[in-house]
């Protein structure tokens, strides 16, 4: 079942880090690779909003990370300011706004790359989870085995849609599998909600396909 909320706001592009110019210079912004080139997301509200679009770790598993949630992180900005920033980043292909009920174009037009390391299965009171992080340190994120499977395999597949279909087909022989885990349409819908679970800790990034 999809998380409650509106269209998901998703960051697009590979974060290359902060760009500083000149010794002692101020930060100029974030470098992000998208659309075949490294672009500068200007320091201040644009860079902050692109960062916040990745999601807040404590929240993203519970509600859809939509324009309203993102705007709420910027109490000093009015809705019109948030809309202006969002529209600018959408136009620059640095964001995608995705209606989970109409996500086919997004899923076919984007692919996933994973960052950080897989730390494997961990037993918790509520069952098994999988850790993602840096070897030798506690996981930065614990995700469900299905999300971990996506994180592991999606970089090997050509689009988010292909990844969802591959996972649905691969789940058929899994013990205790549910119908939703083998139905490609259901897995495609689930992928939209899995993305922020991973993006919020920098466990990967989205790239738009040419």
């Amino acid at each position, binding site marked *: 079942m999809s998380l409650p909320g509106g269209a998901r706001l998703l960051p697009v592009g590979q974060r290359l880090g902060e760009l500083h110019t000149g010794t002692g210079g101020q930060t100029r912004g974030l470098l992000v690779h998208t659309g075949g080139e490294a672009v500068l997301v200007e320091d201040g509200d644009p860079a902050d909003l692109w960062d916040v679009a990745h999601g807040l770790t404590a929240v993203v598993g519970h509600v859809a990370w939509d324009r309203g949630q993102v705007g709420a992180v910027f109490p000093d900005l009015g809705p019109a300011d948030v809309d202006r920033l969002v529209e600018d980043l959408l136009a620059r292909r640095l964001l995608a706004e995705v209606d989970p009920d109409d996500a086919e174009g997004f899923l076919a037009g984007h692919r996933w790359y994973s960052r*950080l390391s*897989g730390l494997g299965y961990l037993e918790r009171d509520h069952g098994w989870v999988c850790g993602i992080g840096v070897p030798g340190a506690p996981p930065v994120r614990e995700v469900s085995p299905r999300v971990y499977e996506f994180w592991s395999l999606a970089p090997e597949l050509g689009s988010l849609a292909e990844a969802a279909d591959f996972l649905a087909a691969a789940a058929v022989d899994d013990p205790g599998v549910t119908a939703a885990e083998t139905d490609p349409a259901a897995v495609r819908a689930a992928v939209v909600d899995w993305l922020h679970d991973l993006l919020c800790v920098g466990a990967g990034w989205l790239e738009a396909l040419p």
Partner: protein
Amino acid sequence: MSSAPPPDASWLLPLGRSLGPREDGVTHDVLAGRVVHALDPVGWLVWSLSHGLPGAAAPWTVADLELQTTAAGLPDTPAVLADLLDRGLVTAVEPDDAELLTRVRATVQLPALGNSAAEPEVWTLGTPEVPLVHLDRVTFDAVTSAHRFPHLAAAVAWAAGAAGRAGLPAAAGSDAAVLAARVREALPLLLAVGAVHLELVTVGASA
């Protein structure tokens, strides 16, 4: 059939990336391409040690691995290494293999941190708390973009071309041969700290 053991001076390159332990806590999975390989604890340790040790600046050789596995008391390293070679989880190349960068595809695993006001010429991979790898800008570009290319040599050619169009001199990395040498030089550390993982190039891949 097991492969012939590689010479002691061969450069060992790990392939794939760890998915950590399964529920049994004993079996470890390594993903290479779309195939998940289950390794027992000894196999996983030898595969992990095939990445080298942080601080190593030279190619990590079979002899280096055997020294570490002997020190760790791991049994029968040659047989375990032969199994990893057969399963495509490790490859061994001549340290001066001129075609090496055409044989492997790389994907960056550590966050890219950009540069800093204090050292604007130094570009870093790591975590904000622990920056681990420091590179010049053009090498950083080749490494962080490598996943978009069929092999590392193509990423190097792209980064060198971009540097040339930006007016950087050959010594700064706009010459692909200069940049390729830098990337090769950086590989031992990049692998040892888990900054990148490698895959073997599939037949038919081209620049």
